[in-house]
């Protein structure tokens, strides 16, 4: 609307004022829609996920490390060294 008025340059002053007011209202609406919550208590209650999550990652990675070492040992143990071709 605002651009329309600018482009046509024909709207009466009162209409232009109304348009500006409408634009301001639209902007306020956008900001109101995006209002977020503020619940500090959620931080504490979700620390559980941080603890369990970090623990789980360390456990999984530790298992993977163990598997890689085991794999290395097994591969070395079962690799038969072939005699070099003359």
């Amino acid at each position, binding site marked *: 609307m*605002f*651009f*329309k008025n600018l*482009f046509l340059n024909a709207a009466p002053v009162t209409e232009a004022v109304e348009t500006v007011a409408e*634009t301001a209202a639209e902007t306020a609406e*956008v*900001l109101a*829609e*995006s*209002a*977020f*919550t*503020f*619940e*500090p208590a*959620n*931080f504490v*209650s*979700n*620390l559980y*996920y*941080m603890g*369990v*999550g*970090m623990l*789980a*990652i*360390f456990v*999984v*990675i*530790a*298992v*993977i*490390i163990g*598997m*890689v*070492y085991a*794999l*290395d040992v097994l*591969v*070395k143990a079962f*690799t038969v060294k072939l005699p070099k071709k003359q």
Partner: protein
Amino acid sequence: MEILYENLLQMDWRYLVMWAIGGILIYLAIKKDMEPTLLLPIGFGTILVNLPNSGAITQIHNGVAEPGALSVLFDAGISNELFPLILFIGIGAMIDFGPLLSNPKLMIFGAAAQFGIFFTLCLASIFFDINDAASIAIIGAADGPTAIVVANKLNSQFLAPIMVAAYSYMALVPIIQPPVIKLLTTKKERQIRMPYEAKEVSKLTRILFPIIITVIAGIVAPASVALVGFLMFGNLIRECGVLNSLSETAQKVLANLITIFLGITIASQMSADKFLNVNTLLILGLGLFAFIFDTAGGVLFAKFLNLFMKKKINPMIGAAGISAFPMSGRIVHKMGLEEDPQNFLLMHSIGVNVSGQIASVIAGGLILNFFMA
């Protein structure tokens, strides 16, 4: 005559702001060389979808939906996570797990560097519902495809800002990480040398590794098995030795093709009404926070280990435990050289960096396990 300017009359100040954002992304891609493969398509797409009545995205006219190409691509490739998963095949084919397999202990830093994700989850839950908070936290993984998959599966309403933040911060690794590392380490610590003992890794180990990782990750976090599986499938193609042409295709053609579609399709979510709000700023801030705390988590964990170890670790390598591969590993190596020109940390930092790739996918899977209905 009116038909010529009818669309111009639909202009809104928000479109102009989005054009400016698109322009900044294109500028960063071209002038600053920051993740140009993604930021350029996203930047151009942002302008494309923020034209009044843009035919690139689905528009409703008289109650009838007229499908736009980008919206169709979004439904076909992102809302079902297909593009990020296929991209993971290419990424897997690009990764050499050799440095990690020759020193598996390094993987522990990949785990430590996921701290920022979980800490940010707690912080973001103050402002957002838990599914959105978890999706925002995963930005800290510095892993675009994982961020897309997690945000999609958790039905986050903030997919667009999350994707943009994830890819932008990946590009900003050289700017974000060094100050955090310097803040948390002393000059003496940064000068710790870590001689690299090259160790041969058998072909069998290289082949079995992706299979084992898939099985373990699949058992622990079944929701992430597609992510891990596609990544490891790509790596298996690379390591098996009999599919060289497929490996090359996955690394180059496939990855490039998907990247083109991914970038421009992400932009379909960058419409002004979805993007321009206070939440976006908050998400960008929380994403940066996650990134910083991931870096800090890795560095502090290395410092903690040094309290007990005879042979000290350069704590900077802990910072490479994020998924931004290989930028983060290279940054650490470069910082090591700046402190001591004879200190070559590259093999260690790259090893930690690839472990960060695996750990971030597992972190994504765990988050899905926690919160997916």
